[in-house]
């Protein structure tokens, strides 16, 4: 270990330190949420600055087990934004329920550091460590409302199944290590290339390894048929946590997929891509079908997040079929989805600030009369989730579908997938716009009192709104970042 190793990992280290710092501040001044929030946001700013500074260097650390490239930088910045927005949306909701803000932020920051470790991993063991560091705090967050039965139940289910899938994933790593003799991503990759070329021996255990790894990540991104935990965990969690869970660990798990499948296992893309395509088709179709029948907006968004996983998988399938634009589309989609989905959940959380308000459609009836600003913002986010131009969501879908169509020139099935994506996007309009209809055209059953919303919530909503609109008008801004990031792999 030397100084340059520390420099390369400094954003990750800083994230851990900030998390610890939040706990310490809470120890020194118990229950002072202003102090905790101050440390959180200042810390996040420092981490972001470090990420940008280190990202320009482009180095490996710890004997090549950690790697900083433009993809790492892009993903790290995305994770930091997600965490910052979650930290902005949560305090109102938590405070009303007497839940500790400082602990929440600390746990959130630990989860973020895990995701950052994934983004920079160049070794399968580091990758696994990052994954666990990211999801373990996730279980805590899901069960954060300790006195609420649903929250605890969802968390325990999430934890049990998550551990199960982590074990499966670890098994997969063991198989791959056994067959290739290394856990370094580039070593695995070159070894597999020899296997594919026929210059190295092949064992069916490699197929098993692929299956275990794919099952593991499919669970983490909540792809069908490994999605069972999502509705229960999402509905039980406190709403700001649901927003976070539907975005943070999902993008993190996609980072795992990119590092693992696009990095280590790329030589066998022709073999595993069929499974990705099947997963993509199943995931978006089932996610949308079930979302159509939901009357609870939170649960509806949970299923719709499954559908969005499917769209992102389409982008990844296009990449695996040889189109670098597929990866660009996936990254763009991830960023766009993060902002619009966090925004939508923030609106629900704001409405649920008062305890006892359900997230049923009825809560949204006549919202435009009560809280016009929230209603309009929710409309924007829902339109973006539907993929209506000029919003961020439109370009996310556009790039993913474009890449799929381009990949379709060599692989006929990609065309089918592209058409299926378009059909799914159209079907999704129904359940998203239903909420809009409720907000603008229905009258509430009973008189509902209006809650005030904190400044942090408005700031966060402003950021998500601006990003949703800006990425719809100036997609070039993000596209440049995304294509440099994608080049780090391709």
């Amino acid at each position, binding site marked *: 270990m030397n100084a340059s190793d520390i420099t390369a990992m400094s954003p990750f280290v800083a994230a851990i330190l900030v998390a610890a710092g939040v706990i310490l501040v809470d120890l020194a001044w118990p229950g002072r949420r202003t102090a905790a929030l101050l440390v959180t946001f200042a810390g996040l700013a420092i981490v972001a600055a470090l990420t940008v500074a280190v990202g320009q260097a482009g180095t490996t650390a710890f004997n090549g087990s950690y790697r900083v490239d433009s993809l790492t930088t892009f993903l790290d910045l995305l994770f930091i934004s997600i965490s910052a927005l979650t930290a902005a949306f949560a305090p109102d909701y938590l405070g009303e329920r007497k839940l500790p803000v400082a602990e929440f932020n600390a746990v959130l920051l630990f989860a973020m550091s895990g995701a950052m470790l994934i983004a920079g991993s160049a070794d399968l063991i580091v990758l696994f460590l990052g994954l666990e560091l990211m999801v373990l705090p996730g279980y805590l967050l899901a069960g954060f409302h300790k006195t609420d039965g649903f929250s605890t139940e969802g968390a325990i*289910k999430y934890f049990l199944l998550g551990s199960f899938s982590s074990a499966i994933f670890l098994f997969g790593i063991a198989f791959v290590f056994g067959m290739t003799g290394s856990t370094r991503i580039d070593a695995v990759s070159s070894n597999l290339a020899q296997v*594919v070329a026929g210059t190295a021996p092949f064992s069916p255990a490699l197929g098993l390894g*692929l299956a275990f790894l794919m099952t593991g990540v499919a669970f983490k991104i909540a792809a069908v048929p490994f999605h069972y*935990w999502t509705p229960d965990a999402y509905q039980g969690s406190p709403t700001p946590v649901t927003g976070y869970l539907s975005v943070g660990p999902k993008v993190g798990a996609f980072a795992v997929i990119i590092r693992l499948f696009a990095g280590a296992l790329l030589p066998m893309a022709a073999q595993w891509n069929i499974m990705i395509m099947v997963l993509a088709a199943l995931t978006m179709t089932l996610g949308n079908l079930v979302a159509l029948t939901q009357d609870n907006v939170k649960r509806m968004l949970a299923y719709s997040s499954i559908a969005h996983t499917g769209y992102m998988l389409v982008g990844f399938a296009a990449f695996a079929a040889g189109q670098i634009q597929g990866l660009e589309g996936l990254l763009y989609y991830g960023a766009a989805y993060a902002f619009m989905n966090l925004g939508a959940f923030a609106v629900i959380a704001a409405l649920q600030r008062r305890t006892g308000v359900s997230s049923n459609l009825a809560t949204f009836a006549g919202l435009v009369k009560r809280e016009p600003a929230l209603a309009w913002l929710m409309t924007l986010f829902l339109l973006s989730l539907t993929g209506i131009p000029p919003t961020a969501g439109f370009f996310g879908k556009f790039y993913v579908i474009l890449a799929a169509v381009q990949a379709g020139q060599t692989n006929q099935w990609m065309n089918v997938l592209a058409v299926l994506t378009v059909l799914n996007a159209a079907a999704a309009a129904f359940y998203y716009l239903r909420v809009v209809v409720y907000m603008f055209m229905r009258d509430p059953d009973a008189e509902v009192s209006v809650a005030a919303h904190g400044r942090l919530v408005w700031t966060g909503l402003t950021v998500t709104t601006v990003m949703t609109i800006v990425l719809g008008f100036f997609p070039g801004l993000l*596209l440049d970042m995304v294509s440099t990031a994608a080049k780090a792999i391709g």
Partner: protein
Amino acid sequence: MPYDTLIPLIPLLPILGFAFTSLFGRRLQLRYGRWASELVPVGVVIAAWVVAMIVVVPALQHQAPFGDSGLDVKAWTWIPAGGLQVDMGFHVDALTACLLIVVTTIGMLVHVYSIGYMAHDRATWRFFAYLNLFMVSMLVLVLANNWLLVFAGWELVGLSSYSLIGFWYERRSAALAAKKAFIVNRVGDVGFALGIMAIFLNTGTLNIQDSLAKLVSQGASNTIPLTVVALLVFCGAMGKSAQFPLHVWLPDAMEGPTPVSALIHAATMVNAGVYLVARANPLFASAQDAMIVVAAIGIFTAFMAASIAFTQTDIKRVLAFSTLSQLGYMFAALGVGAFSAAIFHLMSHGFFKGLLFLDSGSVIHAVHDEQDMNRMGGLWRKIPITHGTMLIATIAISGIPPLAGFFSKDEILGEAFKNGFAWVWAIGVLVAIMTAFYMWRLMGKTFYGESHVDPSVAPKVHESAWQMTLPLVLLAIPSVFLGMAVGLPLGNGLLVQWLAPVFKGAEEILARPAAAETLLGLPTDTVLITISVVAAVAGLVVGIGLFGPRRVRQETIDRISSANGVMRFAYRLSLNKWWFDELNDLLFIRIGGRVAAFLWWFDRTIVDGTVNGVGTVVRDAGTGLRQIQTGRVQNYALGIAIGLILMAGSLLLIVGQPR
């Protein structure tokens, strides 16, 4: 001058005005009163006018950095997607500059006028927000440097026009008219959209200048023949510019507030089609068959609309049909290859027709929202400014020298004749007679003769407020002088010189032989001018004879309207607007309705049956899936395990032997 920043500023200003007014207008109006909500939207349009003028002057004179080919300004890349690059980019050349003059000047005056006209309305902030939105749309349309952005402006224009026609949405007729305008426009838009796709297929670019150059150079080797492309683009133009058979929406659009009629349905939006064809002039010049279609439809619309204007009694409807007729002239000009004449007429018509509409608004205002000319008359003493300016506009539209209409109309007719389209010229002269006549009929019924104004209203008739009369006076100035300023010498005036580089492409392709110098032993120009002046005067004289100002020959008028035989048919043809609404009703409501009813039946029983069948299956599947979602962790884990086994099985099969 930093034109790169000035040009994007022109549409940006009204965007800001629109955003501000829609967000805060209501609150401002409630708290501080009407003026507070009107300050910003009117202010931004005046500012946009100033900026536009700074840009227009050098652009018209081809000064650097505009030059002959115009200046391209790219704000940012809008859609970066591999091979398809669409910029948020603007192109300003002399043609754009001409449109900018019309749009911003009339737009500004209409905004000012509206302050007075809408003073009795409740939600003026909404009206001004829509007006600003319209300005944005129209400016984007004329400034855009690529087809996609033109189309965005095109659709936005349609949307804002819809909102403004239906501004008094409580009135059923207004809501219906808005819907009609929107739907009829949509028909043309489909053609335009297909045209854009055809252009992209042929050339692989959406940039207007590049694609036109490519289309022309590829000639017959284009994937989609140029005639088809040109006709598709013309479809869009027909919709927006209300040419036969898509003209039916414009008269109904008069349900909107009168400033809207002046701005959108006389001076700007309806010109979009003319602009589009002029902009695509190399394309049309390379597709001669399409040009003939344009000329034929144009001149037919001119004649038909003029004939309908004879018998309408609603003052705004007469003007609406007159607009149709004049737009027909412009398309006839485009069709015969007289592009600069068309733009010349677009500009002069924009001013005098805008003025006529604002005048009619002032009249309607004066007689307390009465639009039927049979209930007016003898008003000229009571509203002298309105009367004076309207008289000027009437003389201008009739084509009496030296007012603006004479120059532009004469140029169209002369070019048509000289380019070998004698039939267009002949019908054009006939329409000129008709125009002068029906315009005088309007003047006579409104201002002269006995008063038929409602006795309870008559004593209260008074001239409008200064916000309304000032724009009238300001618009009268170009109506008088525009022709003399840019139309002399005839056939080679300033405007022709300005626009020459824009239409050079088309001129080169058309490469017409010089027309005969003499006709009937006299210089051709002299003969043609004499004929058109005589035609205009003839129409006017008949009009004055029948409708005043000295005396009204009511018996003669009555005799004509109650005549038998051919006269009776002609009268009824005109009165019933050639039965186009009835024809559409028959075609689309009755016959189309039958077809739709059948389709509905088919949809309900066959399609829905299938879909519902699928739905039932899906729901059952959903119920089945819900069985899986038991809430028991053991079941979930089992599901994951089964998934893993399936995954492992298939991967083992697929991977098999990778060699």
